């Protein structure tokens, strides 16, 4: 097996809420390789964004994080001192945040904010190799980078804002990128441009594309699906969406307008009240007593493919 450039081992994130412990991310293990981009699919509240924030050390004190994340020559990013983490974050380890226009400071011009990213995160680069803000904007395909640099965030369209935050991610020398819902709220054309951008600029990097948009996942080499805090399926990109195994993944595909718009009954469980057995059992047509009593493990059934379901493959 190839060595992983980002090895996530048994990552758990729990929050305390009053008397309850909310297990938001539960025993997630994933290996990512540079150049083999992975789409992490999941619906609102399944824990996919929290997973990325945990790896980047961006969660509040109230979160309990355990497990190990091996990357960039460190055995465990989670136990790095905050000084060392600060040296990685924004440089080698980049998060392209959800809600791009909300992630920009409304009172400064775009160019000035990019210049700050370059000053802070390009410190590993020699002065000569440090890019200009307009250069970064040109690299993300904006037509008039000079004039965009003079705009304020509220003057950007959704697609432009997405490109600006992507440009900020290019300021350092990124090696691992988490793109959190980059296509949210974009129309078809802007979405295509955004995904192409990620593919071309981060081609040789580790990229985790966090999304609830099934279409955005199509064409990526690998797909992982998350439900109620855990990975329920990992497959090759070419299996998706045609030959996915888990009932939840199948349900998601069938709910998509291109595949029939058939809803999945019910709602995802609250992280405070997770079912004892399979977390999808209450909504699953195939569930039996076994599913309701025992929690299924994530079982590999082929190289790089695994599924968390007693009935899969049967």
């Amino acid at each position, binding site marked *: 097996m190839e060595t992983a450039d980002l090895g996530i081992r048994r990552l758990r994130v729990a929050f305390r809420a009053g008397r309850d412990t909310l297990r938001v991310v539960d025993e997630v293990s994933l290996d990512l390789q540079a150049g083999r981009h992975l789409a992490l699919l999941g*619906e*609102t*509240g399944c824990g996919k964004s929290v997973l990325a924030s945990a790896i980047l050390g961006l969660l509040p004190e109230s979160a309990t994080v355990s497990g190990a994340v091996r990357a960039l020559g460190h055995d465990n990013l989670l136990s790095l001192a905050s000084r060392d983490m600060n040296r990685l974050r924004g440089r080698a380890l980049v998060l392209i945040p959800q809600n791009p226009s909300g992630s920009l400071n409304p009172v400064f011009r775009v160019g000035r904010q990019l210049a700050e990213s370059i000053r802070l995160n390009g410190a590993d680069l020699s002065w000569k190799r440090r890019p200009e803000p307009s250069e970064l904007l040109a690299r993300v395909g904006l037509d008039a980078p000079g004039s965009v640099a003079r705009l304020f965030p509220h003057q950007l*369209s*959704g*697609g432009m804002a997405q490109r600006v935050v992507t440009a900020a991610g290019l300021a350092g020398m990124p090696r691992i990128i988490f793109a959190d819902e980059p296509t949210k*709220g*974009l*129309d*078809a*054309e*802007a979405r*295509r441009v955004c995904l192409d951008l990620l593919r071309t600029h981060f081609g040789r990097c580790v990229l985790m594309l966090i999304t*609830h948009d*099934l*279409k955005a996942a*199509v*064409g990526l080499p690998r797909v992982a699906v998350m439900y109620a805090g855990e990975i329920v399926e990992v497959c090759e990109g*070419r299996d*998706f*969406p*045609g*030959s*996915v195994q888990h009932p939840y993944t*199948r*349900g*998601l*595909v*069938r*709910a*998509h*307008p*291109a*595949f*029939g*718009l*058939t*809803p*999945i009954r019910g*709602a995802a469980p609250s992280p405070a009240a997770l079912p004892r057995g399979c977390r999808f059992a209450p909504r699953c047509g195939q569930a039996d007593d076994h599913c309701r009593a025992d929690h299924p493990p994530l079982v590999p059934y082929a190289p790089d493919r695994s599924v968390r379901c007693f009935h899969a493959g049967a």
Partner: protein
Amino acid sequence: MLVLESVTRDFRAGRWGKARRVLDGVNLSIGPGEVYGLVGASGSGKTTLARIVVGLLRPSGGRVLWEGREVMGLSGRALRNYRRQVQLVFQNPQMSLDPRQTVESALVEPLAAHGLAPSRRAALDRVHAMLDECGLTRDILGRRPHQISGGQAQRVVLARALALEPRLVIGDEPTSMLDVSVQAQVLEILSRRRAQTGLSLWLISHDVDLVRSFCGRAGILECGRIAAEGEPAALFPAQEDGADMWREEAP
């Protein structure tokens, strides 16, 4: 039933700014029981058009006709009746609900305002029936918008709209903030009501897949004009996204 005749709308940036024509002579009609999909890129004027139809904006030119009568000329009882019959559902459900209002009062208030419930008892019965129809449970009634999920909030908004027994529901990207599985649930509520009462639906979306599978007729709004109109399958053949794999069989 609803007819738009060369509707135009200009927006001016500031008092002396140059007028920008956002809608430029839109002609469109929606018949009883029809499901019409309006597709357009961001900024093409879709939302402006919907706001004009429900009377939130005035057109700069052209006419909006409901049952042959011009909407801008309606007043009093006729206007109130029009506002009940044509319901608009917005993209962001949390922002369509008053943050200080409980779900119960959000659902009861329009019934009272339109005189559809003679007593509080009757109003509550109606609200309970609506919750059942929209797949919500009664414990949601005491909550406020920030205490419920986006999918629940959009169902509350739908319950509020459908309780008034509208004849046309305009959904302005009603599911684009929702997950796919919830999107399908929300659209199912609308389809079911349409099958029961012959309600017309006007779905505004930039999701071509959605319009292709949900709508019977569709139009493309481009630069303020209806650039094309017809059957969704003919308007949007196969994939323009280059996602050939997407055409594989569903599992």
